[in-house]
């Protein structure tokens, strides 16, 4: 299992979703991507994108303006 960090800070949606999508394209089921964001829209958009693609959002952590969304790649990847 591998883990990657995606830097989507200072990007507005849907760019963080696109960065997540592109990062996950190179991963295997069970791998983890940690997406660093500042647009509060990601708390809706990344989980919505994950739901329709069969990935799991393990956690969403918000500290000040930094939002970290952790995604585990699903079996349909």
């Amino acid at each position: 299992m591998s883990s990657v960090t995606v830097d989507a800070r200072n990007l507005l949606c849907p760019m963080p979703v696109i960065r997540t999508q592109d990062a996950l394209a190179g991963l295997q089921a069970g791998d983890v991507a940690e997406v660093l964001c500042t647009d509060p829209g990601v708390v809706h958009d990344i989980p919505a994108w994950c739901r329709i693609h069969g990935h799991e959002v393990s956690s969403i952590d918000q500290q000040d303006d930094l939002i970290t969304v952790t995604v585990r790649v699903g079996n349909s990847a």
Partner: protein
Amino acid sequence: MTRQIKAVALISGGLDSLLAARVVMEQGVHVEGINFYTGFCVEGHTHAIRKKDRDRPKRNNALWSAEQLGIKLHIVDIIDEYKDVVINPKHGYGSNLNPCLDCKIFMVNKAREWIEANGFDFIITGEVVGQRPMSQRKDTLPVIARDSGAGERLVRPLCAQNLPATLAETEGWLDREKLYGFNGRSRKPQIALARQFGFEDFAQPAGGCCFLTDKQYSVKLADLWSTRGTREYDLDDIMLLKVGRHLRPRPHFKLIVGREEGENRFLEGYRKRFINIIPTSHSGPLVLLDGEAGADDIELAARLTARFSQGRDAQHVTVSVSRPEGETESLEVVPMPSKEIPEAWYV
């Protein structure tokens, strides 16, 4: 065993593309969605930036549509490639800087490339004959099919019965009788069909989904091009056009004035790229100075910054002026009275 027919639907987040995809899914076709991000998409940006909008329920309507349909959605960044569409539209602009016909041709062409790369059979759009004055007319719909290269592989399920049969119909992948013959600007047939499918709370943006259809935004973009002497832009340029008050007190520079906390926070990210001014004696906006500025220009910018601060009625306001290279100076200025700010300075 019969081969599964597959189609990709252009999903904008609006009602028509949602319905078009669903109509095709009803006939047993495997549908996935594709959504193109141009940088001009209205989708959510001002909600993300402006603090007062943060409490509103926010959603990406294209993702919402895909969830309603239960399909995958592929979001494609076309920011760089799209510049040529905006700068050199073969078919010209609409009432603002909206190159709607070239835009649709470009997007359908990208979808054509996508279906060829992914082994899909045809493309679905939510277009309706007569729905829009530039890109959805009886004479322009065939132009989109032709110039995009999609030809007979482009299906418009909502108005298919008004158009020649496509490959999907002649091959028997779709039953033409189960497609629709919508026509014109009325939204009633779409709303009735939405009810029939059980869709509620769908998006119906009054001004479309693209900032280029917005008059004020187009004026700002035209100002950017004319003062730079070149019709170029990058993503930061077009994002900044969505934020703040824009004033051009001199031809060689303009000011971007944050209107509230959320915009100030967004503009913070650009302080290393622009001269920036912020009041220190009173609360007030972060102001970016875009262009060249001498000492007189800096003073003028500082007075305007003071005008938009809480010290607008004070005798003096102190502001901090920072340059991208890190040099910072403090200036004490008299706020510019609003009656001395010509209307023409507002872009």
